């Protein structure tokens, strides 16, 4: 079996099971940027993109994503190291505290602004409402996503 992750192909053993993508990423491929929080699809720490759609990798059977484009936090920045506007905005506004939920927050937010260049405050909250942050950076997350949209607009204009 093969997975396409961040535009690279990773062979993985076919155990004939439907083990979660998250555990394959973290425990088999050592792509530990994607985090585990609850293992039940509630907290959002494990969010990755599957064909551009933010998806809970802890609830995604690995055999359901064969041949699909998987993107993790390790593949979000450009290959030259230029950060995604959401990553840059999260640094600019000094959003992360402990940082454990941040891969999930950033992947969720990146999918939002990649699909909607000018999200409204309500759209931001709706998109981000299922990603827990125990350190309590919620309002900085909201501000940073608005800032990221501005950064993206500046970069493309």
């Amino acid at each position, binding site marked *: 079996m093969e997975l396409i992750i961040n535009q690279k192909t990773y062979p993985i053993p076919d155990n004939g099971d439907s083990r979660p993508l998250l555990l394959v990423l973290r425990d088999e491929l050592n792509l*530990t940027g994607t985090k585990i929080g*609850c293992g039940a699809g509630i907290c959002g720490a494990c969010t990755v993109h599957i064909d551009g759609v933010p998806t809970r990798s802890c609830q995604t059977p690995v055999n359901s994503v064969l041949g699909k484009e998987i993107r993790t936090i390790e593949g979000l920045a450009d290959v030259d190291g230029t950060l995604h506007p959401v990553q840059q905005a999260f640094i600019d506004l000094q959003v992360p505290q402990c940082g*454990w939920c941040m891969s999930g927050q950033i992947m969720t937010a990146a999918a939002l602004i990649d699909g909607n260049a000018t999200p409204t405050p309500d759209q931001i909250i709706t998109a981000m409402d299922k990603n827990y*942050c125990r350190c*309590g950076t919620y309002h900085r997350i909201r501000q940073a996503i608005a800032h990221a949209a501005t950064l993206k607009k500046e970069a493309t204009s």
Partner: protein
Amino acid sequence: MSNNSPKRWQITRRGLLIGLGGAGVLALGWAVGLPKLRLAISDAVEGTEKPFSRGAPKVSPTVWFTINPDNKIILNVQKIEMGQGILTALAQIAAEELDIAWERINVRMADTGSGVDDANGTGNSESVVSHYLPLRQAAATLVVMLKTAAASQLGVAAGSLTSQDATITSNDGRSLTFGAVVAAHTGEWVVPEDAPTLKPNSAFRYIGKSQPRVDLPGKVTGEVKYGHDMRLPNMLWGVVARPVKFGATIASVDQKDAATMPGVHTVVVEKDFVAVAAETKSQAQTALNTMDIVWTEPATPITQQAIENAVTVIPNQGVIIQHEGEPETLLADNSRIITLAYRTPMAVHAHLEPQAAIVDVQPDKVDAWVSTQVPAGMASGIADAIGRKADEVTVHPVFLGGGFGRRLDASLGAEAARLSAAAKRPVMIQWNRAEEFRNGFVRPPTHHVMQGSVDDDGHISVLSHHQASGDVLLTIFPPIVGDILGWDIGAVRGAKLYYTAKGGKQTIAQRVKLPIATSFWRGLGLLADGFAIEGFIDELAKSVSMDPLAFRLKNLPDTPFGNRMKGVLQAVADLAKWGTPLPAGRAYGIACSADAGTCVAQIAEVSVTGTTINVHHVYAAVDAGLVINPDGVKAQTEGGIMMGVSSTLIEEFVVVDGEAGAINFDKYPLLRNSQAPDISVVIVGGGDEPGGMGEPPIGPVAGAIANAVFALTGQRLTSLPLRLA
């Protein structure tokens, strides 16, 4: 780093430590303690003692500079980065006094054994407080020593040298980098016995500035490694049998085929420890699930009702921990006495990174990577568990995905160590969310009886706080300590009354031993005590029809401490425009508290939809004395507020059928983004000493929200989480 670490230490007359050995490297450190600002607040409100500080070794040097020949300057600190920005704050302090470019300093979390370990761990809001002056003095001493050595190397007088950005220059234009001076130095370093002159505050270029966090670039790209992310070659995955019921112990074990199942390497069955190590985590779990483990449950089932009954104030029980004037007389005689009882529930930490440990037990040494706030304590715990000496164990600190007090538990590494010792290979144990809920410890439940009365002129005449709480700090001591003391220093954090009561005031602590584990949670008793005291103060203000802000300002003492409290109250009132009308359906509530040398006041703006309480905005004023990183202070204020809002509106851990009522976030939800208020923070005060920031901002939150709900609805809610009738 550890290869460069000194193996011997010399202590100078002033208590400064200098590392010897390790050619071409100079290392310097200092003992740390709590300065007087923090102690003054402790005396005023915290209790008679500082939870971690008394009893901990006073000579506990935790601050080390290492200068390498390439002029790289490393600050090794045994403080753990768990989101509070401590690495950045300590680097700012060090870079300031060394007077070097920001880019030149590299701050690292130090391994245990690389210096003298920090026995206090990371907690108690004291990392900046305890390091501020010692770090500056060590840095200044280091510069003096380097100048003295450079003078000798250049053949000039030390007084003629200047130091700028880690380069020492003589007045004839020759210069040497710090690294070059260290590399060329021969013989013993001489530590000056005179205390160095420190930079005047007016010359600060890093202290007081919002330097960007050094750990954030790696946190937005996924590069930073946390405990749960660590992997070792040849590592096994371990799982441990844990009870579902509180208080259950292992009665009997039938291993069945566990030891011969695919991938299984080692099965350990001991009286108190049943665990499996296998090549993959699922193989280990499958094998453990195969085993028949019979548990002995407690003779008396543990129920939620029994816990609440136990945690109930009983008149004349407990220990008087604060007593002024004659409160008993007034409480007995005064027909105007108002009494309110408050209750707070148990809560989990819900650190989003489940805890994890890799331990590699080798014949001659033990290496461990553990998600812990207490590396030194963890090293001892591991050593004890496997019968090794503590100095054979090196705990390598890792970033923490949230701490909140949960990772002050030193038992985590022991089970990985036991399994590694049996398997003779490195073993990783990762907890899952259900284990965190079932088998960790929780914030103790509390009950408070508040009593008081107010004179016609608006002065408090008598004030009494009787608190019943499960243990916090006593959990980590042998039982006899609690039996002798009779009260828990941690549980009463924030319990003492800081308002003036003309006739007298008292605080009584009633310790309750519970059958489930309770211990550290951000702020210890601070959230619960703030809820009870500040809610009750609002009720007293109402009893004489006074504005809650004016009532507080009138009844805080005219002391330096009282003036700081009034300062934050006035500042938050200005920020939120207290007193100006709000839109229909909105109301403000105000509260304040003091902790760890820091005074905080908050105003919450709420509305109500049906029986749902919405918190729209929290305004905060913070007086943390001298501020190292203003944005860091704001971030900690925001974080404390959000965690407090979550506790105030949502969180409640209950026991159901003798087990955890929730084992994941479906039944124990946390605050979500749509429920999270906007937050505005203003920093006031100043001076020469920093206060703590990790915990103080959680103190006023529940009180401010409950008081706003009262202002809006007339309902005086006295239990957390707040539930409208």
